[in-house]
């Protein structure tokens, strides 16, 4: 109840309720995979990530990461993982990132030469240099995120939990973070678990996606298959040399748009090759374009539906 009355009532009759943030989720991820977690806000993605890295204790069920029970937070486990949150930072705000690097290096037991070597290696990969000696508060968001990634990866973790790592970054900075993560995965064989609302992150990095809706897993598989099942058709746009009648195209697919020489058709994926071949044989075609409906749009619809056909 809002307002003064509600505030008074809250003092004497505080209502609490239980939320099952994650209820039925089972999956296995093999070493070196990059997996994207998809779901609307509040679907349970971040909760899942927090359980896997050991921040939250699950009330039931079993979580096993690299043979460890994450919630026990054993030192050996903590040295295997890292968590990067796009909206939170672990760098010390008023000091240069370099200071935070040396604190982490000491905490994780890295020798000085090893820490320097690692910082240089990651700084090269992230294309960041002199910014590391400027106070964090004076860095741009993109530079800060690079420094956050560097500090989080200093101890060579084999499992990376990334929660919205490109949040708020401009298009170029997002692309740089993506290419770094991809390169890091190839170079080190690290497993990456990623949540992001930017579909570009998912399409660029994650061959496999896990979709969560209201705490339940409803899809676990490769992104292409998900796109296929979400949209069984592809859009074919044709530009003809000579005008034709609409009924000539009825048998090829569902006509979306038509005007004399321009036709847009929705064609079933499994008949696509055959239909394109027929169109090229039967018509004098100047230009032909085949496209998927935008993945953002498909995933957006998926979040609303919460199921895959």
């Amino acid at each position: 109840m809002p307002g003064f009355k509600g505030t008074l009532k809250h003092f004497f009759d505080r209502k609490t309720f239980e939320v099952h943030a994650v209820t039925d989720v089972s999956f296995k991820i093999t070493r070196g995979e990059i997996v994207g977690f998809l779901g609307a806000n509040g679907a349970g993605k971040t909760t899942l990530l927090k359980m896997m890295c050991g921040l939250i204790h699950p009330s039931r069920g079993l979580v096993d990461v690299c043979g460890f029970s994450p919630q026990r937070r054993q030192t050996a486990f903590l040295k295997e993982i890292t968590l990067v949150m796009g909206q939170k930072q672990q760098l010390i705000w008023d000091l240069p990132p370099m200071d935070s690097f040396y604190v982490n290096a000491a905490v994780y037991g890295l020798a000085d030469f090893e820490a320097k070597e690692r910082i240089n290696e990651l700084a090269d990969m992230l294309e960041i240099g002199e910014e590391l000696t400027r106070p964090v508060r004076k860095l741009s968001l993109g530079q800060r995120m690079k420094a956050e990634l560097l500090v989080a990866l200093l101890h060579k973790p084999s499992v990376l939990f990334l929660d919205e790592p490109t949040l708020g970054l401009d298009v170029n900075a997002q692309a740089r973070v993506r290419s770094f993560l991809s390169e890091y995965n190839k170079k080190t064989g690290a497993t990456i678990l990623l949540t992001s609302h930017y579909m570009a992150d998912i399409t660029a990095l994650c061959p496999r996606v896990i979709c969560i809706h209201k705490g339940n897993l409803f899809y676990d598989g490769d992104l292409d298959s998900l796109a296929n099942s979400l949209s069984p058709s592809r859009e074919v746009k044709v530009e003809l040399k000579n005008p034709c009648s609409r009924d000539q195209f009825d048998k090829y697919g569902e006509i979306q748009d038509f005007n004399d020489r321009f036709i847009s058709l929705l064609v079933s994926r499994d008949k696509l090759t055959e239909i394109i071949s027929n169109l090229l044989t039967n018509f004098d075609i100047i230009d032909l374009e085949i496209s998927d409906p935008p993945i953002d749009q498909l995933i957006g619809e998926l979040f609303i539906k919460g199921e895959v056909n």
Partner: protein
Amino acid sequence: MRIFGLSFKVIKTLLTTQYAYMLEYRIEIALWALSGVLPFIMFSLWSQNDVGNTFGLNDIGLARYFLSAFLVRQFSVVWVVFSFEEDSLSGRLSPYLLQPLHPLLRYVAAHLAEQATRLPFALAIAITFFILNPSSFWIPSLPQVFLAYLSTHLAFSIAFLLQSLVAALCFWTEKSSALERLIFVPYLFLSGLLVPLAAFPSNVLKVAMLTPFPYLINFPAKILSGMTVDIFNGFLAQILWISILIPSVNILWKFGVKRYTAMGA
């Protein structure tokens, strides 16, 4: 070399980094040091009313006691509950929990670094005090300085553990800093910050000595100012309180951390 399970390198890196961080806030810390002049206010109050003689202290004794109380307070002041509460509610605690270092040790390092930053300001205030009250000037003996230094560190440890106990309640309540007031009020009256405990009636004093508060200011301040003090029992009580508080904080932390929901992160 390891101290309390931590390598010397970790301790050194944490302390130097935190010291660099505190230096960024040196003006704020100077103001905090200045804001700790309560013992001087109490000194002027007591000396003007000539109350010191009633509990066996002349003006010079009172001045030395309150200056010592000021210095002890400067190096045993604790604010972990406020930082911890903010970090816990904003989710900044999450990365700390995922590192192989107990999060409370970071706060210990921050406190020690802050004390080092306070040192020149506290000394400057002490020198000003002597200029204004030249008759109260004294140089404590080396054993006095050593014992006062030791007992001040133990006092800091007790204060830190007491507040950590309250801070750990952050896992259950969103405003554990409000509960800290429950400690602050008895601390104010029973620690010797407002008046030397010798001024208390004997039955109140007996009860006060059963709490940890007299060992936070009164005991180290009495050593430093050269007053008569039961050194053995004082240190014994400080160590006893630390040995009670360490497992208490550990138990509360162990249960509390299971309830951590990583809000805001």
